[in-house]
């Protein structure tokens, strides 16, 4: 169509025209954040066909390629405006998709935390010659703890996605959720409320320190709040020993959650961009 011509000068103009048209379409697609690859491709193809038609019409009227680009831009409008209109058309769909993906992330994260902590406890049971079955049977009592770890980690991740440029704002979802959970645990399980809250804080701080480039520094993220709680509130589980097992479970859970979040971003990166 517009790619091959005899004159090299003409070819350059054709190339410029093609580049300009591509740029307009790419800008719309980038800013519109359309949900789904298929839809993106379809809109891209549709807009491109339209711009080709406008450019061809301009050239058939005797305009050169530079003028054709100006006419295309003038008639098509600002890509930002078109993208905003597309975004508003598909915003309910995009929101529904995000909620669905978030639910998947939370569900997978919860399963991962249960598996990791279950494994840690099973190994500890073997080492202390206790029954693995009875250890696993009692795991349902830690439901609030598992939920708190996932909530702490995922709330900070959500904050990072919502406010990628401001750490203070990124902390808002975690802080708000933490306060809500403190009230909820205080009401539902007043005797054991502090432990899930500590787990929540450890997971959130663990995620926070995973942002630091220094390897393994995030170990302190899970250890710090636990140590502070232990020093301030005394025994969190039983005895005055530091709860190493809890720390190990939390740390490994944070590691597993980091891998899950990375996988999640790879799979849903387009829709979450």
């Amino acid at each position, binding site marked *: 169509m517009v790619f091959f011509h005899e004159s090299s000068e003409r070819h350059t103009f054709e190339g410029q025209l093609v580049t300009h048209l591509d740029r307009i379409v790419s800008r719309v697609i980038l800013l519109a954040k359309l949900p789904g690859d298929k839809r993106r491709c379809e809109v891209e193809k549709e807009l491109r*066909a*339209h711009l080709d038609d406008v450019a061809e019409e301009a050239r058939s009227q005797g305009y050169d390629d530079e003028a054709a680009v100006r006419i295309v831009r003038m008639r098509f*409008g600002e*890509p930002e*405006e*078109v993208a905003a*209109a597309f975004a*508003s*058309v598909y915003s309910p769909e995009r929101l529904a998709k995000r909620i669905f993906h978030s639910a998947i992330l939370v569900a997978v994260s919860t399963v991962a935390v249960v598996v990791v902590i279950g494994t840690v406890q099973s190994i500890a049971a073997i080492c202390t010659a206790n029954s693995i079955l009875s250890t696993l049977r009692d795991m349902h009592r830690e439901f609030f703890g598992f939920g708190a770890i996932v909530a702490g980690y995922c709330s900070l991740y959500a904050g990072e996605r919502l406010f990628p440029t401001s750490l203070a704002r990124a902390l808002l979802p975690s802080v708000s959720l933490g306060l809500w959970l403190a009230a909820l645990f205080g009401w539902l399980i007043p005797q054991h409320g502090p432990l899930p809250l500590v787990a929540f804080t450890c997971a959130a701080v663990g995620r926070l320190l995973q942002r630091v480039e220094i390897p393994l520094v995030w170990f302190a993220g899970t250890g710090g709040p636990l140590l502070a709680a232990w020093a301030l509130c005394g025994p969190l589980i039983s005895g005055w020993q530091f709860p190493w097992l809890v720390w190990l479970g939390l740390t490994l859970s944070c590691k597993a959650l980091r891998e899950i979040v990375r996988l999640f971003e790879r799979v849903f990166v387009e829709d979450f961009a």
Partner: protein
Amino acid sequence: MPIDRELLKGSIALLILRLLSERDMYGYEIIQESVHRSQDAFEFKEGTLYPALHQLHKRGYLRSEWRTGENGKQRKYYSLTATGRKAARRSEQEWFSFTKVVNAILSKANS
């Protein structure tokens, strides 16, 4: 006389539905037809037609399919669904009622 952009924006759905009630068209064709019928009075940004088409498609008023033209070019043709036909009739009636009322007010004001 150029038409106010906002006024045109508000009636774009009606224009699309009306034109598509006559025959299947693709976006560029809808614009050409609007410009031709309005005798070049319509000067809206063409890019904004496509979000409007997608909105109507999402509402179930339009269906679309890719067709290859004689020159080998692929184009996305839109056509009205049964719901779209009803919506087109309803929109037209609303428009005529609206313009009748506005005309009545304007003619009184001018007399």
